[in-house]
Structures are given as C-alpha cells and as structure tokens.
C-alpha cells in the first residue's frame, strides 16, 4: 500500500472526519477571534469619527464653538451632546432610532433650545439598496425636510398617513420609521429639556 492509498483509507474513517471538522472549527474561530481583535479598535475609531462628522453635520455651520464630544450629558440612558457658542446653549444633539423595513434605523438629530429641529442624519441602517436608502444624504435631500420643524408646528407623519413628509416610491415603511424616530426624539427632548440642562450644571 502506498502512502496516498493509506491516507485514503484513513480519511474515510470516522475519527479523521470528526478530527478534521474539529480542526476546521478551531481554525476558523481562531481566525475570526484574531480578526475581531485586530479590527475592533479601527472599527470603533471609524464609528467615533463618523459620529463626530454627523454631529457637526446636523448643526448649522458656525453655530457652536465648543468640543461637542467633550460636552455631554447622560440622561435616561441617552448621551446628549450640547452645542454652545460663547458659553450659551445653541443646540442639543442626540441619537434616536426606530425599526425600519429590515432592522433598526439609527439617526442623530439636533434640536435648538426652543424645540426646533436643526438637522437630522441617518447614522446606520440596513434598508433595501435603491429603495429605502434615499434617507441617506448622499442619495437624496429628503432628510433635510425635517429642518425647522417644531413639535406643534408640523404634521408628524408621511403624506400617505396624512402627514407632511414625502414617502419614497416603493418604500413607505422606511421614511415612516425615520419620521417616527425623529418625532419621538423631539418629544423626548422637549419633555426632558429642563432636566437635561439641570444635569449639566
């Protein structure tokens, strides 16, 4: 019997099969664990950078001069970033989310002290490419329709539901979810406004 014939016999036996399967399991999970360790920090860094960029995007240019990421208040489990100009509060930025068509949509929004929306951006989502992704600024200006809206001054729903925000052709659930997220975020802020400011001092 040659070596390769011996190997063929050995390979068809149960211990080899179980052993090789176990080896593959160990190898692949080791590779994943290593990769996770190597990428964890860069991924967290990029997300932090994305957050900073988004924070600056939702606020009007020149409306703040402080370090946003450094001026935070934790209130009811939410981190609120306070934008200030000359020591005076000009806006509060926080994240909110709701369930979209496939998975949750995370948005960051800025509200001024009078309860007016300054800006909204989507941080992450897993909506259908080509349909639901029009909530990204890169693909459409839709998300800018929230600017200037106030709680009593706007009908907080998509047009199909009798509100004032456009839905997209073929995708109603996604914009409906974003409207809901922003609406809830605004309600929360208006209600908790005073408490947040108190916590800051």
């Amino acid at each position: 019997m040659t070596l390769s014939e011996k190997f063929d016999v050995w390979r068809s036996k149960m211990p080899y099969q179980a052993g090789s399967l176990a080896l593959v399991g160990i190898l692949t999970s080791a590779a994943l664990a290593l990769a996770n360790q190597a990428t964890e920090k860069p991924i967290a860094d990029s997300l932090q950078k994305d957050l900073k960029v988004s924070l600056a995007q939702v606020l009007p240019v020149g409306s703040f001069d402080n370090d946003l990421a450094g001026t935070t208040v934790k209130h009811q489990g939410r981190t609120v970033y306070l934008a200030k100009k000359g020591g005076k509060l000009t806006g509060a930025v926080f994240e909110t989310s709701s369930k979209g068509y496939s998975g949750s949509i995370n948005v960051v929004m800025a509200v001024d002290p009078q309860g007016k929306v300054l800006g909204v951006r989507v941080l992450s989502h897993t909506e259908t490419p080509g349909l639901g992704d029009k909530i990204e600024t890169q693909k459409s200006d839709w998300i800018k329709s929230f600017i200037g809206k106030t709680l009593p001054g706007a009908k907080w729903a998509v047009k199909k539901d009798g509100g004032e925000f456009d839905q997209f052709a073929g995708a109603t659930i996604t914009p409906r979810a974003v409207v809901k997220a922003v609406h809830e975020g605004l309600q929360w802020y208006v209600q908790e406004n005073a408490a947040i400011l108190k916590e800051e001092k």
Partner: protein
Amino acid sequence: MDGEHKTNRYVGIFRDGIWNQNIIFSQTVALCPAMAVTSSATNGLGMGLATTAVLTAANVLISFIRKGVSNEVRIPVFIAFIATLVTLVDMAMNAWAHDLYKVLGLFIALIVVNCAILGRAEAFASREKPLAALVDGIGMGLGFTLALTTIGAIREVLGTGMLFQQAHLFFGPGAKWLEQTVFPGYGGMLMWILPPGGFMVMGMLLAAKRVIETQRSRRPAVNAQVVHC
C-alpha cells in the same frame, strides 16, 4: 501540445463561467441576492464584483485543502470556510476601508447566503487544481457580475430612465461619466424597480438566452445537411 491543450481548457472554463454555465442564466442559482440588489446597474455591478472576489478566494482556498477533506464532512467544512472568509472581508473592510464599507456593507452579508459560492466549491473547486479553480472563480464571478449588471441596467432604464446612478459612490468621482440619463423627462415606472420587475426582466433574459442558443445549435446542423447534399 500539452501547454496549448491546457490553455484551451482554461479558456473553456472561463467561457463556461461567462456564458455556458452562467450562474444566473444557466444554473439559475443565487437568485435571492440577484433579485434583491438589481434595482440599479450600479448595485448589480457592486454586488457582482464583491461576489467575484469572495468566490475566487473561496475557490482557491478549497482547492488547496480538497485532498484533506473527506467526502462525508465536506459541506460543513466548505460552509465554515466560506462564512469565515466573508466575515473576514466584512471586518477588514469595516476597519480599513470604512468609506467603501459604508457603501458596499449592505451587500457583503448577502454574499454569505449566496449558494453559488458553495455550489462552485462543491462542483468544481473540490475536484480541480488551484489554478483551474482560480480561473473558474473569476469566470463564474464575472459571469455573475455581467448578469446582475444587465438585469440592473434594464430595470433601472425602464424604471427611472437613467443608468448607473450613484456610480461615483462605489468607484470614486472618476466613474461619474457612467451616470447617464437615457430618457430625459421620463416619469419613471416603479414596477420595474420592485420585485415583479426583477422577475420579468430575468424571465425575458432567460428566454433571450435560450433563443440565441437554439439558433446557434441549429445553424451547424443546416450546414451539415448542405455538405451531405
């Protein structure tokens, strides 16, 4: 002689991937990601290229280990390798090509469930040498890319009157020229972007491929008759 024979074989493998055994139009597998992302030509192209990369890597990897894998446990072994590979690509892109990841990230998770990759591992890479598996991976991947881009382009033109929208998000500002308005002032016809449009375009293209193939196989037969006369 042998070298030429080998080259011919690789050309044959490549041609099988692009046309004769095209993943979408001949094997009709991997239709789930195909229908899901082909709402525009750009998405089709992006998904196709990402899949090509994973398919080629998986093919070569599996071809290298093929002798050590016993027949009875081959499927779990292949699945473990493919899923790991896709996850590694996903994590690496997220960490070091974050801007590209933000655009392509939606598709990468879909590659794991692409049965064509396991299909090629099973039908080809587990029986052939690494070089042949590499050619097969590239051929099958490009055939898949071609199919997705074609379906996406037809759906996009019929649905919106435009072609390769947002190509610059995937391929940089240099790809701006790809973005064309085919029918200016076209109001759009949503059905083609939605799933029914995908199935219809797919069906028509399948039929078209059949017609071309039938005509091709008929022609030599006619010639043969002439020779006989």
